[in-house]
């Protein structure tokens, strides 16, 4: 069982939902990232999603675009991100790490080399935003061959037939993008998301995470009632942008935000359904 699968299993037994914070690796500088990952774990993160900076982040809004630009000023490459994961793993063997990024840096390294290096570093899942399942065969096979879960997106435009096909290729969990748009936008409609997640669960057996547009404890809690995982990105990255140059302030603010989300999410769950 992969770390991601194990985590969801533990949470399910405890009647809790996963909190998955996203930060861009190397934002605002490479030294900030690993201590920030540990701080997020301490504040209640179940899985850490680490963005791989890319020069052309087409699916991201201005907040994460700027994060990529800050990281790229320090030339934080995919290889450098893997080093950060390896460094994190020296002190934490339990919390899954998921890389989120775009295909070209992986292509430049080569799928096979990347999958091997990612496994070596202790990566548990890889989400490639611009790689739909139709084109993903080779990379998905390499990842699975190295014990890494290929994570795929579902969106409001994904047809039921596609959901079924995507669920076949994916493992770990499915990432439902809560609205049509880029990261950081504010279009979340919690009721519509809840209904959609219920529908997705009738088609796919994997846990469903929901991301895009979750900005505070309240929206995290409301989404967590329906979803198995809540993914928060821009709301955290905003704190990093505001406190660039002050790594401790960044850690404090991000941790504070996550603690509030964790508490609100845990408070909203129906009494732990221990099975």
């Amino acid at each position, binding site marked *: 069982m992969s770390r991601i699968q194990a985590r969801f299993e533990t949470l399910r037994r405890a009647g809790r939902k996963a909190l998955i914070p996203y930060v861009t690796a190397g934002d605002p500088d490479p030294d900030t990232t690993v201590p920030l990952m540990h701080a997020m774990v301490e504040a209640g993160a179940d899985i850490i999603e680490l963005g791989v900076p*890319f*020069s*052309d*982040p*087409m*699916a991201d*809004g*201005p907040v994460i*675009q700027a994060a990529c*630009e800050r990281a*790229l000023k320090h*030339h934080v*490459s*995919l*290889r450098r991100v893997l080093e950060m994961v390896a460094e994190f793993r020296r002190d934490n063997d339990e919390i899954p790490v998921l890389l989120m990024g*775009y*295909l*070209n*840096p*992986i*292509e*430049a*390294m080569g799928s096979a080399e990347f999958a091997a290096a990612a496994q070596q570093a202790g990566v548990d899942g890889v989400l490639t*935003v*611009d*790689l*739909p399942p*139709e*084109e993903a065969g080779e990379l998905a096979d390499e990842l699975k061959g190295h014990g890494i879960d290929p994570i*795929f*997106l*579902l*969106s*409001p*435009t*994904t*047809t039921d037939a*596609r959901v079924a096909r995507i669920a076949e290729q994916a493992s770990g969990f499915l990432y439902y*993008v809560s609205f*049509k*748009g*880029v990261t950081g*936008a504010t279009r979340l409609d919690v009721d519509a998301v809840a209904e959609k997640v219920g529908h997705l669960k009738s088609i796919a057996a994997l846990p469903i995470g929901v991301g895009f547009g979750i900005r505070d404890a309240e929206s995290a809690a409301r989404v967590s009632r329906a979803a198995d995982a809540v993914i928060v990105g821009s709301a955290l990255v905003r704190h990093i942008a505001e406190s660039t140059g002050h790594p401790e302030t960044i850690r404090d603010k991000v941790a504070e935000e996550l603690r509030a989300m964790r508490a609100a999410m845990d408070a909203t769950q129906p009494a732990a359904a221990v099975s």
Partner: protein
Amino acid sequence: MSTPTEAMAPPHFTDLPDANGHFGPYGGRFVAETLMEPIEELRQAYETLKQDPDFQAELDRDLHYYVGRPSPLYHAERWSNHLGGAQIYLKREDLNHTGAHKINNTVGQALLARHMGKTRIIGETGAGQHGVATATVAARLGLECVIYMGAEDMKRQSSNVYRMRLLGAEVVGVESGSKTLKDALNEAMRDWVTNVDNTFYIIGTVAGPHPYPAMVRDFQAVIGREARQQIQEQAGRLPDALIACVGGGSNAIGLFYPFLDDSEVALYGVEGGGDGIDTGRHAAPLCAGRPGVLHGNRTYLMEDNDGLITETHSISAGLDYPGVGPEHAWLKDSGRARYVAVTDSEALQGFHDLTRMEGIIPALESSHALAYATKLAPTMAPDQIIIVNLSGRGDKDIHTVAAHEGIEV
């Protein structure tokens, strides 16, 4: 019709892309999940309308009465004699409405948008030619229009910015990344994924996810179809070589496509060589890049060792793009077409040569193709024929040329 031996041969170049939009290993659909269904709807709508005689008749009417097609094929005799080699014919896309080949594509996609019931048009632009051509068709159909343009490009193509605004388009300056065409494309993609229900994205070149590279090619192939017929009428035979500049590659593929199966016709695509390939400051992914994935397709890219897209340099905003249409990547690998680069200063020389020798002021993009013709023609015999795609007129570039020469206009 294919004979039994031909049926044994590898598929014709004109049969590509395959059902999933692949040209050999290139092309495909590399987009976020939200766009997968919309691009599939677009593909279906396009495939249906492509077979529809009424749609084709409507398109032909627009190309004739609105764009002014067919564009002339002009024998540049004085220039040919001066170069002392092959006879050079110019396909005069500069004489189209709005002054470039870009309108062939926007007229087609706008009709498609209307058939699909979309009320809002978006586009990206580098030199501003595609933006102007898009704003033009949007004005004509009464559709809302937003054009994304790199802030850097807005500075060097300010007259086109004004033209688009006159036409009623909103021009949004893009401040991210290198502030040029690739960043404008990123921003247009972000708009599209957000407003996909009512919005049609008119991509300006043969890039993007399937079906764009094939669809834009089909709309631009009118260039090559006309040229093929015109040269047979004027010279009684097919040309020996075709030359076109390559930014994303739409004017080049438009000229090449109807000749792809004429193996005796040599094809030359000319990339923006900037300060020279050896300097690294250029916009020539086919000459000096390597395969990767950007903007929805797999193709040759300019990137660093870590797979990050690098900045490009060309005097011509329309060539300043780190990628290239996937069909060109395939034509390169298969050896059917050859890709070369000419530098900024060679292109400027081509600009002046044509202006002085033939009384035609060419776009800086097209001047790259002309500059290569000045190299190729003298190596050929006077009874041989080259067709150069004169993809646009140079009015938009006179400020750039003047500034380069220290002249204030």
